[in-house]
């Protein structure tokens, strides 16, 4: 095979910036600009907010964690795991208690990820629950959430299983990647290895609709086996 063809085959196999050339010891202007653009998009994703109209469209109300502001959010992950007292009051008032499946959506580290994917993933997830004869409770949105906010919510609502759709830490390939964390009976004291995740959900990674369709199967299996996390496989 010609060297050029080999290089093209390698470039096709990865989104990493390989074979981009150089000018002396530095990257080409084009490469440099591309890099800075992608980096800026990642920063924007962290500091951005989910469009309110999207949440309304899906009928999700909003509660906040104790994160305060984005600067604190980044420095104090622990605060993103606790819902504010006001938030808990709203949850208690508006949500079905002890649902079979609790769905929670959160911006996490990328509001863009939610904006880009949730309108497709959320209805597909509801379909997936329906096909698997699973009943969702009352879904809502958590602003400033970290993954382990699942435990606080689990403690309050006592669901059999909870699925959290949350924006991932953005990278240079995409700033729109979302994860679906799942846990059987998340409660205070649940540890990381009790959770399962489907990550990298975005049109260039794990296909969003297919991920949503598979979540129902995973949740159903969790309820059948009454466990999740590393015990699950």
């Amino acid at each position, binding site marked *: 095979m010609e060297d050029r*063809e080999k290089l093209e085959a390698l470039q096709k196999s990865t989104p990493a910036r390989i074979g981009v050339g150089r000018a002396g010891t530095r990257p080409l202007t084009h490469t440099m600009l591309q890099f800075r653009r992608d980096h800026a998009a990642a920063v924007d994703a962290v500091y951005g907010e989910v469009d309110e109209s999207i949440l309304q469209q899906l009928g999700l109300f909003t509660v906040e964690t104790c994160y305060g502001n984005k600067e604190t959010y980044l420095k104090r992950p622990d605060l993103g795991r606790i819902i504010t007292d006001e938030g808990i009051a709203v949850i208690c008032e508006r949500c079905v208690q002890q649902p079979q499946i609790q769905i929670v959506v959160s911006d996490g580290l990328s509001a863009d990820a939610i904006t880009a994917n949730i309108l497709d993933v959320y209805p597909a997830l509801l*379909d997936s629950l329906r096909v698997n004869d699973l009943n969702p409770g009352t879904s809502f949105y958590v602003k400033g959430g970290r993954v382990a906010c699942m435990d606080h919510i689990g403690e309050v609502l006592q669901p059999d299983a909870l699925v959290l759709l949350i924006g991932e830490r953005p990278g240079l390939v995409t700033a729109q990647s979302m994860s679906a964390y799942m846990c059987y009976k998340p409660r205070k004291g649940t540890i990381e290895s009790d959770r399962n995740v*489907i990550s990298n959900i975005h*049109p260039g990674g794990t296909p969003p609709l297919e991920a949503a369709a*598979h979540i129902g199967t995973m949740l159903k299996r969790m309820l059948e086996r009454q466990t999740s996390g590393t015990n699950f496989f």
Partner: protein
Amino acid sequence: MDELSFTSVGIDIGTSTTKLIVSRLRLGRVSGALHLPRYEIIERELHYASPIYSTPLLSQDEIDMDEVARILRHEYDHIGLSLSEVKSGAVIITGETATKTNARRVVHYLAERSGDFVVAAAGADLEGLLAGKGSGAEQRSTEFPGVVANVDIGGGTANVAYFREGKAIGTVTFHVGGRLIRLDEQGLVHSVSQHLQKWLLERRIPLAEGSKTTPDQLKSIASAMCGEMLDYLSKEAVDPSFRHLIAGSPPPGPLPEIDELMISGGISTLMADREVPESMAAIARYGDIGPLLASSLRQQADKWPFRIVTSGQTVQATVIGAGMQSVEISGSTVHIDPAVLPLRNLPVLHLEYTGIRPEDWRQAADEAMLEAAKYALPEAEAPCAIALSGAVIHSYSTLQMVAQALLDTFTGHFPDAKIMVVVCEHDMAKALGQALSIRCGKCLNIVCIDQIRVERGDYIDIGEPLPGFLVPVVIKTLAFS
């Protein structure tokens, strides 16, 4: 369940020989724990190869089905293989045997009695493809920047399959094989295949059943058959009479340029013998002209522009292809109703949707189904498999429109169908299957699988789920005919 292996058999009932192989295929999870499950066949291991049996015939026109069944039973017993262990594989009737009056019945009968999901396969194109996979030509084409063609020459036919970058790009079949002339050591001709008779007649070569022949006459026949076949493959001009030796109709487009030619099949085994058969006794030692064809091929090999290599899997290429390479597996996130599997021999309806707007899907699906009505099986519970190719659909609303359009047109064209089968090229079957399933309730069983590429004119067999969520699939390609 991170790894699982299953048994696959290949059975080849050829013009002169019948053989069986047993292989172990190992499935492994290739995706990480944070991703959707994705399994692939990570190893194909040849476990057992039977002795080579003479194909039992009742007469010139009929296969001795009972005897073939007895051979297989004997082989299964011999290696202690039970039918329920055999999870996939293929029975193929090849060469001139495929033209016997009971060929179709035999292949289906055996497929259904050889294991849980053993498929019936036939057709010169498929035979060539399986041989090309079994010989290693397909694999070779992934390592080598050019076109690798495999010629599998047996008793009745020479099946050529072309591969580039691991993909089949064409096939052609010739009536060139050892058993086309059967004779004894005295030079008495016992039979001449009818295809060859026409060629001999046009070339004014007097050779017929019951006549006496000479080593020189046979040598010139073998030399002309091989030479013209290689001329044809290298796109040189050939004698007009060569048309009689092309099986079926000649390929519609120009044949690809060959860079490397691999030879497999019974004749390739004989090519290892460097001695040129001179006497009638040496020529007719198998009762046919096989040894002469082999020595002609070997002598002439240098004259053509492509490099000629002998396959590592000579006589067994087709049966190895049938047993080890015929099965593929679907993606691991699919929507299936295991109760309706396996499904066999579904004709494929192909819908390429690149560039079709969501609102135009209904019309596109309608046209595809109208066309499919020509070859679908309207009486069957599953009349056809709808193959969708194009990029993954990422929009929920588009997917809903697509599901509705497919369902409406399918039930419109096939009102008696009980099972709707959809085969997506890319990873979207679970989402589409769920959308279909929610819409049709209990009226139809939905089988929606993905990561399988099929074309119009193919036939597909879908097996029972292996570890509970992915299915083995065999595609019987007729795309080149």
